[in-house]
Structure formats: structure tokens, C-alpha cells
């Protein structure tokens, strides 16, 4: 027998076995309807759970991307200061983050897929449950034993199959969400412990970052000094030295520097 047929037979027989059958056919309908409502609320919870996991992964991606952007900035700054070694270190760390980010994005796509699948399953089940409810009332109203039994069997097998399918979809989504959560938890721990973002955190205990920091401050000081002296850039130390005294005076009174230097220029011109 073909694979399709074997799977069909087995799945259907399991779905039918799973449905409650009462002595009184009308009770069977009510039992089944109750089970359908339970499953419907379960699938709704499933959708919400997957959405929560997806948002968590989104948040982590954002955090890691911020860290990566910081590292990129540090690499650029290092190069400006001719510290290729530091730039290399920053880029190495950034590339490790990029792997994590790519992984997370794959998982995000999977979670999104599960969420869409479950949402559709919920809509299908909702429609079938509604249809079953109507059918149930009709069957009850026109109840004569033999005829009712046939119509009940029809309604039950269709809904049973759908319930088995939705149950499977929920179970698979739960499995995937559990895997993601374990992984997301591990990344949260890494972020919390600083292992991932230490490299980019300001004033972290990390030597290279501290060095980069202190060099950045030095460069900032030089740049500021140069600006105070009315010159464009720190790359022209001769020019800075050649600048007249106002630089020192200005450094003592930063608030007034603009006015003073302007008036100084005015005086010179």
C-alpha cells in the first residue's frame, strides 16, 4: 500500500479513537464540542506563546546588532588612530556577533512560520467548530436513532481529523518554541554575563576596550585643543604649536572660547 494511504489510515484511526463516544449519541456530540472548545483555547495560547518567543528573539537581535554597531565604530576609530591591531580585535568580535545574529534571524524566521501556521490552524478549527455546533443542533432537533447516528459519525470523523491535525500542529510548535527558549535563555545569560557585549561596553574590564577608550579620549582632547586654537585638525601639530597664546587662555575658560576666539580673529583682521 502506498505511503500516503498507510499514513492516512493510521492517522484517521488514531483521531477517531481519541474522540469520546458516549452511550447517548447526543452526549457524544456535546462531549466532542467541549473538547473542540478546549482545543481552540489551547491553539490560541499556542499562538500567543510562539509570538512571545518571537518577540524575545527580536529583542536579542536588536541588542546584538547594537553591540555589533559599537564594535564597528571602535574599529573605525582604531584605524583612524593607526591601531590596526585594535581594529582587528574589534572586527573579530563583531564577526563572532554576526554569526549569532544570523543564527537568531534564522530562528526568528522559523518562529514566524510556526506562528503563521498556528494562526491558520486556529482559523480552520474555529470555522469547523462553528460548523460542528450548527450541525450538532440540527442533528439533535431531528433526532431519530439510526439516521442521527450516521450523521453524527460523519460530523465526528471530519472534526476528529481536524482536531488530530491541530493537536499535531500545537505539539510541533511547542517543541520548536521550547528549543528556541532554551537557546534564547543561553544568549540572555551570555548578554547578562557580559561575555558578548563586554567587547563593546564602555568602561568594561577589557584591556583592549580600555586602551581604545583612553586613546579615543586623547584623540578627543587633541581635536578639542585644535579647535580651540582655531585650527581644523590635530594632524597638523606644527600649526598648533605655531598658534598664538589664546589657546591656553581659552582652555581655562571653555565657556568663553567662541567669543574670545572670534574677537581675537576680529582683532587680527
Amino acid at each position, binding site marked *: 500500500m502506498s505511503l*500516503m494511504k*498507510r*499514513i*492516512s489510515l493510521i492517522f484517521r484511526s*488514531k483521531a477517531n479513537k481519541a474522540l469520546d463516544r458516549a452511550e447517548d449519541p447526543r452526549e457524544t456530540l456535546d462531549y466532542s464540542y467541549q473538547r473542540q472548545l478546549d482545543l481552540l483555547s489551547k491553539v490560541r495560547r499556542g499562538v500567543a506563546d510562539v509570538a512571545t518567543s518571537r518577540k524575545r528573539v527580536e529583542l536579542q537581535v536588536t541588542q546584538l546588532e547594537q553591540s555589533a554597531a559599537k564594535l564597528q565604530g571602535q574599529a573605525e576609530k582604531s584605524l583612524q588612530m593607526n591601531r590596526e591591531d585594535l581594529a582587528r580585535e574589534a572586527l573579530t568580535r563583531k564577526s563572532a556577533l554576526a554569526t549569532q545574529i544570523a543564527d537568531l534571524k534564522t530562528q526568528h524566521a522559523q518562529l514566524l512560520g510556526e506562528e503563521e501556521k498556528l494562526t491558520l490552524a486556529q*482559523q480552520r478549527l474555529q470555522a469547523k467548530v462553528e460548523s460542528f455546533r450548527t450541525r450538532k443542533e440540527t442533528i439533535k432537533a431531528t433526532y431519530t436513532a439510526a439516521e442521527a447516528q450516521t450523521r453524527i459519525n460523519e460530523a465526528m470523523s471530519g472534526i476528529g481529523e481536524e482536531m488530530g491535525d491541530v493537536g499535531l500542529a500545537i505539539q510541533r510548535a511547542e517543541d520548536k518554541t521550547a528549543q528556541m527558549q532554551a537557546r534564547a535563555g543561553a544568549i540572555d545569560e551570555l548578554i547578562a554575563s557580559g561575555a558578548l557585549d563586554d567587547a563593546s561596553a564602555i568602561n568594561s574590564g577589557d584591556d583592549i576596550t580600555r586602551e581604545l577608550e583612553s586613546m579615543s579620549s586623547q584623540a578627543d582632547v587633541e581635536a578639542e585643543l585644535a579647535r580651540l586654537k582655531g585650527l581644523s585638525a590635530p594632524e597638523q601639530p606644527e600649526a598648533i604649536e605655531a598658534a598664538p597664546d589664546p589657546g591656553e587662555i581659552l582652555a581655562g575658560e571653555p565657556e568663553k572660547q567662541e567669543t574670545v576666539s572670534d574677537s581675537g580673529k576680529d582683532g587680527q583682521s
Partner: protein
Amino acid sequence: MIIRILTEGQYDVADHALDRLNELDATLEAAVEAGDEASFATALAALLDGVRTAGVAHPADSLDESDLILPPSDATIEQVREMLNDDGLIPG
């Protein structure tokens, strides 16, 4: 005929499309027997795509039973074997 792809829903598939689907089914079965995960994945994707392409979505509010039920698109060989073994159809 109504074909269900598990976790995806039911499709109405015209009878004339069945020959092609049966071929794909045979390929899938061979892959399961051989335990060849790569050709299993290809064959399953081809079979499910065949159903999606040849079929149209069956109305969501119908309570009709499917004539055929297919594994979900992300199923592994292991999971398909489990689906088959549960009922003891395959001895051992």
C-alpha cells in the same frame, strides 16, 4: 478527492493529478525505506508542492474527512516512520 497536508490543511485535488502524485509518493516511500534523508526531503517537498499546485484549498468550515493524509512539510524520516509504526502496520 480531498488531501490533507498535516499542520497545513485540506486541498481538493482533481483525480487526473493523482497519477503524478502517486509517482512522487513512490519516490518518497523508496527514500523512507532506504533511510536516505536527503532524497526524502526532496521527495516530500515535491509531493507536497504537487498537492498544493494541483489542488485548491478545501472550505475551512466543511466537516469532510480527507481521502489522503500527508506528513507535515518539516517532517523527518524518523517522524514519518513513527507515524507508520504506531499502529504496528510495519512489523518489527
